[in-house]
């Protein structure tokens, strides 16, 4: 019996080994990536923690979706990859927009002299811009679309774009840009941009109203309907007319909302039955950018491949100061893109992401905001020279790419609050006392591992209007000491509190302690940070009560002004101070606009609002800078926000990944990435040698567990009745 058991175990082990080992022979056992197509350099990356929800440029408005859209589409404008401050460049069009200004009668006017009623942006599409190969462009022998069905059953065999055998392409046309803007206006698409853009683009609102009433049986060719503010001049030239003067519109043209959409692509995806198989423009973007989507499995991975029709584009030959010295121009002049393929795998858990990155199966630790802070915890150690890379990472040759985002996170005061709000000198002093008591530096060090810069104004680094050094500090909260900002003392805060009518944190009239209420999003705050805040405000005798709620309830409170102190954040759409200063513009208050306005503090100061209106229409220059500086000064004087910080993300790169400079605004940077494939293969092999002994140990343990049982069983079988 025992010998039979041992023989059985041996046979089972051999069979299992025979089944498994051949599969393990080609490279490391723990390699989670399937083989890359031969001859193609594949960038292995991650999408985390959720897959994109929308990939239609008219619908999408999220950074993790932009990561894909900006590789596939080319909007009219883009940004220089290396230069800082951020520099706008033509991308899908030949040159910067030719802007002309007209009065209400349509006559050309000098923008500095006359009243500007309209601004007309004229652009010419690049001659070599051409769409990726796609079945929507395929034609039959008679020149008609190859894949145009009237019956859902006719196209039933096509479940993915790769199922269509015939592909076609054509040059990008001016009408495609116009068509894309019409899609933004189509209420059926429910674009998040419609409400905002309708304020500027002439005729957009009326166009949208008109489309509400039309029948929706199948595809609606938007070319049949005219929008007043759009004009196709010729095959490659188009015009957009906007109301008044809005220089920031050029920045909007760099966003994916304005990417060209070919009408035949829209028609293709409206084939009957396609929607039921998720064959939609929302899942299969079609563009003229450096890459095209070849696989979209949002549950698992998204695969991009080089667009064979991508125009001639080259790595920049100039960069920001210091870029050349740091080797960032090593690929200057090379044809883009520098990789053939990019795979983005869905990774929800940090441990898996981090392990695969360290094993070399991901080229970078992440692509957009999200997990980097948690990854950062494991990556760095505190050494004698401050925070430095951990030993394991340093040995691996991993490089660090810090990214101070053009963003701000802040806790704001409700300026209409009866206790903390208002514009009297007492209320300002009260708010300043709270600002001083909240030690932002300590808060960031404890809870964000120092990954943030305390905000001295609403304008983050890299954006015109940000001032560094002594001139840039908030003098109500900081002093400039020994070449660095130093927070004013708690004694000063207490004095301000007393002058505000709250000596030692108690109301001078009633003797009641001052209690402040902070609305926090329950998922975004921990009990330890609440304890820390209790202690921070406790130093000046102020008590705190927290009102945790989910985002929906918090939003409701902001919309109704039912809050005292709230947390919020803002990530720039474009690198202009206007995109931050509007967070304090009076008409943007939700209580005034009766909408999701951005001025959640409900800050209303006529001087600020007037300055904002003037600044908004001015081109960059000294005059504009002066207005921005004055607005920042008003913000500081009124102490509108309790505190703010500019978030800093840390991205880690494996040693074979090159051109890792982060771009805070644009996601159109995949084409610059270069991979040393040979080094990657070598390192992966070296880092992932399996440890075999546990297999033997576990087998031995299993036998050790079973053997006594088998022996006892045999003994029992052989035992006599007496035994």
């Amino acid at each position, binding site marked *: 019996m025992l010998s039979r058991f041992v023989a059985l175990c041996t046979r089972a082990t051999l069979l299992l080994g025979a089944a498994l080992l051949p*599969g393990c022979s080609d490279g490391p056992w*723990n390699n989670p990536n399937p083989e890359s197509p031969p001859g193609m350099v594949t960038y292995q990356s991650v999408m985390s923690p959720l897959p994109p929800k929308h990939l239609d440029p008219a619908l999408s408005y999220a950074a993790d979706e932009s990561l894909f859209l900006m590789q596939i589409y080319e909007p009219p404008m883009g940004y220089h990859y290396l230069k800082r401050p951020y520099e706008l460049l033509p991308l899908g069009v030949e040159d910067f927009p030719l802007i002309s200004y007209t009065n209400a009668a349509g006559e050309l006017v000098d923008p500095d002299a006359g009243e500007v009623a309209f601004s007309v942006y004229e652009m010419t599409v690049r001659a070599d811009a051409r769409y990726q190969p796609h079945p929507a462009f395929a034609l039959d022998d008679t020149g008609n679309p190859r894949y145009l069905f009237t019956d859902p059953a006719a196209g039933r065999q096509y479940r993915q774009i790769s199922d269509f055998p015939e592909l076609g392409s054509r040059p990008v046309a001016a009408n495609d840009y116009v068509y894309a803007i019409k899609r933004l206006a189509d209420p059926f698409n*429910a674009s998040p941009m419609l409400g905002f853009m309708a304020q500027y683009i002439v005729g957009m609102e009326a166009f949208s109203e008109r489309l509400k009433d039309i029948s929706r049986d199948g595809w609606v060719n938007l070319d049949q309907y005219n929008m007043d503010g759009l004009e196709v001049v010729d095959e490659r030239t188009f015009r957009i007319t906007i109301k008044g003067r809005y220089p920031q519109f050029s920045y909007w043209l760099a966003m994916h909302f304005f990417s060209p959409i070919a009408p035949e692509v829209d028609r293709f995806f409206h084939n009957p039955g396609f929607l039921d198989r998720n064959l939609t423009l929302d899942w299969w973007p079609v563009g003229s950018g450096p890459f095209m989507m070849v696989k979209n499995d949002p549950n698992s991975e998204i695969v991009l491949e080089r667009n064979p029709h991508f125009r001639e584009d080259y790595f920049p030959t100039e960069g920001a100061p210091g870029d050349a010295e740091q080797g960032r121009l090593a690929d200057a002049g090379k044809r883009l893109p520098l990789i053939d393929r990019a795979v983005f795998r869905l990774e929800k858990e940090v441990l898996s992401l981090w392990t695969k990155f360290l094993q070399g199966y991901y080229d970078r630790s992440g692509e957009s905001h999200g997990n980097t802070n948690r990854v950062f915890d494991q990556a760095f150690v505190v050494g004698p020279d401050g925070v430095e890379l951990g030993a394991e990472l340093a040995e691996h040759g991993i490089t660090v790419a810090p990214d101070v985002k053009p963003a701000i996170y802040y806790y704001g005061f409700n300026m209409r609050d009866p206790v903390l709000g208002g514009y009297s000198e007492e209320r300002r002093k009260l708010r300043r006392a709270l600002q001083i008591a909240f030690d932002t530096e300590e808060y960031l060090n404890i809870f964000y591992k120092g990954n943030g810069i305390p905000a001295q104004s609403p304008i983050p680094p890299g954006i015109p209007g940000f001032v560094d050094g002594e001139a840039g500090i908030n003098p109500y909260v900081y002093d400039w000491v020994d070449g660095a900002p130093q927070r004013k003392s708690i004694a000063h805060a207490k004095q301000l509190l007393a002058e505000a009518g709250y000596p030692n944190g108690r109301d001078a009239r009633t003797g009641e302690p001052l209690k402040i209420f902070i609305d926090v999003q329950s998922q975004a705050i921990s009990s330890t940070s609440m304890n820390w805040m209790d202690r921070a405000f406790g130093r000046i005798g102020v008590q705190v009560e927290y009102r945790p709620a989910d985002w929906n309830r918090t939003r409701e409170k902001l919309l109704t002004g039912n809050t005292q102190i709230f947390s919020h954040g803002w990530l720039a759409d474009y690198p202009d101070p206007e995109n931050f200063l509007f967070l304090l513009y009076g008409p943007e208050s939700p209580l005034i606009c009766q*909408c999701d306005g951005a001025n959640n503090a409900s800050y209303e100061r006529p001087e600020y609002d007037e300055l904002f209106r003037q600044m908004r229409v001015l081109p960059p220059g000294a005059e504009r800078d002066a207005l921005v500086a004055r607005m920042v000064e008003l913000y500081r004087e009124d102490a509108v926000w309790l505190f703010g910080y500019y978030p800093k993300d840390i991205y880690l790169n494996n040693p074979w990944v090159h051109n890792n400079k982060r771009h805070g605004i644009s996601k159109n940077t995949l084409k610059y990435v270069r991979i040393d494939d040979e080094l990657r293969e070598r390192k992966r092999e070296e880092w992932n040698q399996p440890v075999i002994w546990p297999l033997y140990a576990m087998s031995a343990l299993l036998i050790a567990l079973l053997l006594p049982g088998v022996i006892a069983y045999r003994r029992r*079988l052989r035992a006599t009745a007496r035994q």
Partner: protein
Amino acid sequence: MFAYIVRRLIYAIPILVGVNLLTFTLFFVVNSPDDMAASQLGDKYVTPEAIENWKQKNGYDKPLFLNPQAAGVGQVTDTIFFDKSVRLFAFDFGRSESGRDITTDVATRMWPSLAVALPTFLVGIGVNICVALMVVMFRGTRLDRGAVFVFVALMSISYLFYIIGGQFLVAKTWRLVPISGFHTEGQVWKFLILPVLVGVVAGIGAGARWYRTLFLEEANQDYVRTARAKGCSELSILFRHILPNALIPILTGVVVLIPSLFMGSLLIESFFGIPGLGSYMLDAINSQDFAIVRSMVFIGSILYIVGLLLTDISYTWADPRVRLS
């Protein structure tokens, strides 16, 4: 039996309506259609018009339960609840809030769930039964008492510990298998080894202890003594006599789970990156996608009802004395 099955299926209809009503009510107590629209549209530049457009496009521009502006039956039928619920009974799950066809997604994601859940289930049952029978063979000895102690210890450890511990040891430290992922191209099995192993090991404590109790009850029966007196070997007694007689309580706990295997496991799928229905549900909850949550709860209810029905039917197979009427 046919009449019994039909009757049980008819009973299922009010249960499904009730479950759907409950899900609908609970979801919309927390989220209004406006909240859903805002969360789908993002938190920048969201205008009331954009919210209205989104609601209209996705069919949330009607009253929840009662439409006083409609006439007659329309007061009930021209509502979000009616619109969204009736289609479910025709297995038309509609589209998720992000526009994807739920039926297609469910059909696609069901297989990865099954690829992990089925081997875990089968291997788990096999291991648990074998371990339990072995312990029963040595009942009353130190081996039995030691095994019970180990079972209780295994039961006391959190499932998360098994997952993270397994990932840390097997995938990160020993580098024997990928830490997570799932691919149908090539070697699928190497992504399944670790989740299945974790699932089986995590279930041994509770499973083997439960089966041990069942088998012990049978082990003291007269027919076992008779079999032993007839000279049957211990293995034969365990597998040919005790096991078949303990099947009824085993089936009660096991068969009901079989249809639910399609639904996957929230934790395992999430941690091991398996693109199955468990992670589908979790993502839907996180992104407040009511259409998916509602559909998944509905499918889950149906599978549970089917599981209970199969359990009843399996009794007749395990014990011919049982009659369904």
